[in-house]
């Protein structure tokens, strides 16, 4: 069962709530029924369909549906309500990367599902025109999967320019330069002050 609120590889601390959306997780079998019910409830806008790749998890993919319920039209501006967002997550296994389409419910799903298919390889059953939308038509591979090489399969092993390896962060070495030194001194001073503060507390 995919994790509901968080797990070791998908902790909530890395994914803090940024809005007041209602978040729900659902299985692919109940997906269409739930989306139909939400649409009947008034979620008239499908903002986007996204996907996430968790390579160490089963099911591997999470397909996210972003819905919006607009407040009803009112006579005066003072009565305008706030829209309600809904985020529906659906775990999709890599052995059968298939979901039912929702283009008949929301037309915006057409291109959104094409994008998910193009970049993740998750197919949508019943889609009127499922083909690549961002990569060229006969591209091979799904670029946003975590096991897809960043530079593309053709250039994966070709040498990178020398300056690309000079990042201190990547190399794990301390940074050089006056500003970096000043920053390190500041951090060291703060740590010393923190330690002295802790010792003061112990002494008391």
């Amino acid at each position: 069962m995919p994790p509901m609120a968080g797990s070791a590889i998908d902790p909530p601390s890395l994914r803090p709530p940024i809005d007041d959306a209602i978040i729900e997780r659902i299985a692919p079998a109940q997906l269409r029924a739930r989306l139909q019910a939400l649409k009947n409830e008034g979620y008239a806008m499908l903002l986007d369909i996204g996907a996430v790749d968790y390579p160490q998890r089963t099911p591997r993919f999470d397909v996210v549906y972003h819905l919006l319920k607009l407040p009803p039209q009112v006579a005066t501006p003072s009565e305008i309500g706030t829209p309600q967002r809904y985020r529906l997550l659906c775990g999709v296994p890599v052995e059968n990367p298939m979901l039912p389409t929702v283009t008949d419910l929301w037309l915006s799903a057409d291109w959104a599902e094409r994008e998910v298919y193009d970049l993740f390889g998750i197919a949508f059953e019943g889609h009127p025109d499922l083909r690549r939308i961002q990569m060229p038509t006969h591209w091979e591979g799904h670029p946003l999967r975590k096991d897809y090489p960043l530079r593309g399969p053709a250039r994966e092993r070709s040498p990178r320019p020398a300056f690309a390896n000079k990042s201190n962060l990547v190399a794990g070495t301390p940074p050089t330069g006056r500003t970096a030194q000043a920053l390190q001194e500041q951090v060291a001073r703060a740590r010393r002050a923190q330690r002295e503060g802790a010792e003061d507390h112990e002494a008391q």
Partner: protein
Amino acid sequence: MEIGPGQFLLAKLDDVARWAQSSSVWPLTMGLACCAIEMMTATAPEYDIARLGSEVFRASPRQADLMIVSGRVAQKMGPIVKRLYDQMADPKWVISMGACASSGGIFDNYAIIQGIDTIIPVDVYVPGCPPTPDGLLHAVNLIQQQIRAGGRGGILARA
């Protein structure tokens, strides 16, 4: 070496033709990404590319001499840029404006062509991300110098 009267006339026509070409280089609108903003700034009053002869930017490649490729070129856009370059009439020149057009820039990935000189011949490269409009004007100046310095002879030859 004696220059016959006919040859003298053609040499003078050469000079006039090159002067005319260099003084009225009309670019093709190939503003693809952020560099396009700086290219637009170069057409604005402060930098004013029109005083160098680029009075108008033509939308049709048939009417343009210079293609300023400004911005990153995606894999999908590559064949289109090549087709537009092929549709431009000779003589034509290409400025590769910015880091992305020259070498792929910061986008060392699967989606961006690593430099348009892999698909079309480039005359002047402009470094920067984006280059200042000064840089673009300097590049147009260099194109003008290349035109006036002459090429492989004849008024119809590519400078």
